[in-house]
């Protein structure tokens, strides 16, 4: 590796050294308590899949360039020079970690391996060694946002084609239609709620039906919720993708921004948008609120098979939305079975951190590392596996197929929309 590149990478590393990050890097005692926490290790017991080992790959570089011990006696802490071999190790560490933060629950100090892996991802970007597909997706997402004015017309035409499907789930009153309200309102200034969906009818139609059923004054965002910048670990692109939604919400003067079933999008919006004049909520929270307030009524006879719910890591353990999905499932009349007695210990689906977005490249690893997840689901004997994250949905569907599981993976929001009582 050229010295100039190494220096640039060290500067990138330094840019990530916040107070918590420095403490995470200084503290680990390598006690190994986190070892069984990782689904990858639990499914494939190899040291390289333990959280402490992954973090150590980054920590050894930290020791070499930022600690006196690493400069005077590098052998003591096994400090490592940043070179091509280290980049390979960083890649394996970063892209075998889904950022689920289950290990953080185990660690006696609460070390956040996801944060440490964000250094690995940034260094890989700096060295042009990150997964190309993720960068491409992030770039496409950024450029779509930049060219939104040119795309608005075709986007709105596309939405028109979905309206009938929304009306199939929830028929709007004749008066509402005459008043100029549409099944999928967009760009409505003064709306109470801005709904940020994913690209795809599955993310828009059920949500629209439920909003209309609840009589919500809502509007759909022009932008898609998913933040590929966060997947690839690029802070600049993450912020660009986030800011355009924040700006849209402020322009429309909404009181609430509701994020669709996407874990990363929800956590980024909830925790990184800073102090704003609007609330950030997950669609599951909003649905639970509608049910509690009697704004929507659900047919409890629709679900006649046992159901379990997979808590998406970024929404539950890392985002705090835990009670709402259980309440919604209870209101759906489900024969509900918990995956884990304590939701913070729920196994990750194995598809986070950009792994699902990387597609076939990671398929083999995703399936092998999700063995514990498959076992966990099968033990409940549930026939319906509900979840509230597109990424988890895709991964769980792959797992279901791979392990021949007799379970149907469903979006929770779709289950709500399908059970609406007119």
């Amino acid at each position, binding site marked *: 590796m050229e010295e100039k590149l190494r220096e640039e990478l060290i500067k990138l590393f330094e840019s990530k050294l916040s107070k*918590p990050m420095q403490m995470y890097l*200084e503290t680990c005692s390598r006690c190994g308590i986190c*070892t069984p926490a990782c689904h990858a290790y639990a499914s494939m017991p190899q040291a390289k899949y333990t959280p402490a080992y992954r973090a150590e790959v980054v920590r050894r570089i930290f020791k070499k360039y930022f600690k006196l011990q690493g400069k005077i006696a590098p052998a003591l802490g*096994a400090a490592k020079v940043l070179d091509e071999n280290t980049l390979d190790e960083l890649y394996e560490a970063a892209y075998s970690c889904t950022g689920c*933060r289950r290990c953080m629950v185990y660690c006696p100090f609460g*070390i956040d391996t996801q944060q440490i892996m964000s250094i690995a991802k940034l260094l890989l970007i700096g060295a042009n060694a990150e997964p190309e597909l993720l960068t491409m997706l992030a770039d496409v997402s950024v450029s779509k946002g930049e060219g939104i004015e040119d795309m608005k017309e075709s986007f709105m035409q596309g939405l028109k084609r979905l309206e009938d499907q929304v009306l199939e789930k929830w028929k709007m009153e004749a008066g509402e239609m005459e008043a100029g309200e549409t099944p999928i309102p967009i760009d409505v200034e003064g709306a109470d709620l801005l709904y940020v969906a994913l690209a795809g009818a599955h993310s828009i139609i059920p949500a629209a039906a439920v909003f209309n059923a609840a009589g919500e004054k809502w509007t759909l965002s022009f932008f898609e919720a998913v933040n590929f910048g966060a997947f690839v670990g690029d802070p600049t692109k993450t912020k660009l993708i986030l800011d355009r939604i924040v700006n849209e919400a402020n322009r429309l003067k909404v009181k609430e921004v509701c994020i669709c079933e996407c874990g990363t999008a929800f956590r980024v919006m909830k925790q*990184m948008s800073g102090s704003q004049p609007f609330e950030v909520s997950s669609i599951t929270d909003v649905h639970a609120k509608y049910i509690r307030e009697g704004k929507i009524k659900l047919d409890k006879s629709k679900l006649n098979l046992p159901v379990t719910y997979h808590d998406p890591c970024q929404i539950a*353990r890392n985002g*705090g939305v835990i009670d709402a999905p259980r309440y919604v499932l209870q209101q759906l009349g489900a024969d509900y079975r918990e995956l884990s007695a304590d939701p913070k210990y729920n196994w990750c689906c194995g598809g986070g951190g950009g792994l699902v977005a990387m597609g076939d490249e990671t398929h083999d690893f995703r399936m092998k590392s999700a063995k514990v997840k498959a076992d966990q689901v099968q033990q409940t004997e549930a026939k319906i596996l509900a979840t509230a994250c597109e990424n988890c949905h895709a991964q769980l569907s792959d797992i279901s197929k791979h392990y021949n599981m007799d379970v149907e993976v469903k979006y929770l929001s779709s289950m709500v929309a399908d059970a609406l009582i007119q």
Partner: protein
Amino acid sequence: MDTIYYLVLVPMIYLAFFVFSVGTIIRLINIWRKPKFPTTLQIYPEKKPSWLWTLFDTFLLNSARRHNPVLWFFLMVFHFCFLLLIIGHLELIKDFRILQIIEHEIFLGKGFIGLILSISLIFFLFRRFVSPTKDLSVPEDYYLLILLFLAVIFGSEMDWARTLYGYEEMGVEDYRGYLMSLFLLKPDISFVDAPGHSFMLVLHVFFANLFLMFFPFSKIIHSFLSLPLNKLRRG
């Protein structure tokens, strides 16, 4: 030999405390000067009051208890005994009335504290020779444990000599005279250079000095960072 005794028992001690104090302070200041993280790093569901749960996690090693009870037992025993040893050493400098709330002899535990500590350290060391902990370990981990074990075993031997087989050549008053002289910057090793067990003291002090000097550059800094990190997790 006298010169070696003197070097270890006087200048090396001052150097060790200087490196320990200044090194630790600089390291902590360096951390505290770093920018804040812009958002929460907590884990849900949250439990209130978070500060109380933080104390629980930090001082009772809650997650270790839940996920590795055997290791937790040795960790608790080790840390508790280490605390008692620190109190014992403070009492070797001078009597602190507050520490005598429960009346006790100097060096609590009738020699068993050192023994328990040694066993704990052997356990910590041996588990590092078994995978997967072995695969995570770096030389520093072994070095620190061996250093601590040596410091503890030689220190304990002095206590055992006194309490178990009535060795009275060097007692509490002798150690106190020596430590007080160091504390007042008028070092006098004549209290502790009697033949017999003084080499034990020299070895104990030597390894303890090495440990202290290594402290600011090692992972032992977790003794200061565990509390703020657990607070981050609890929110």
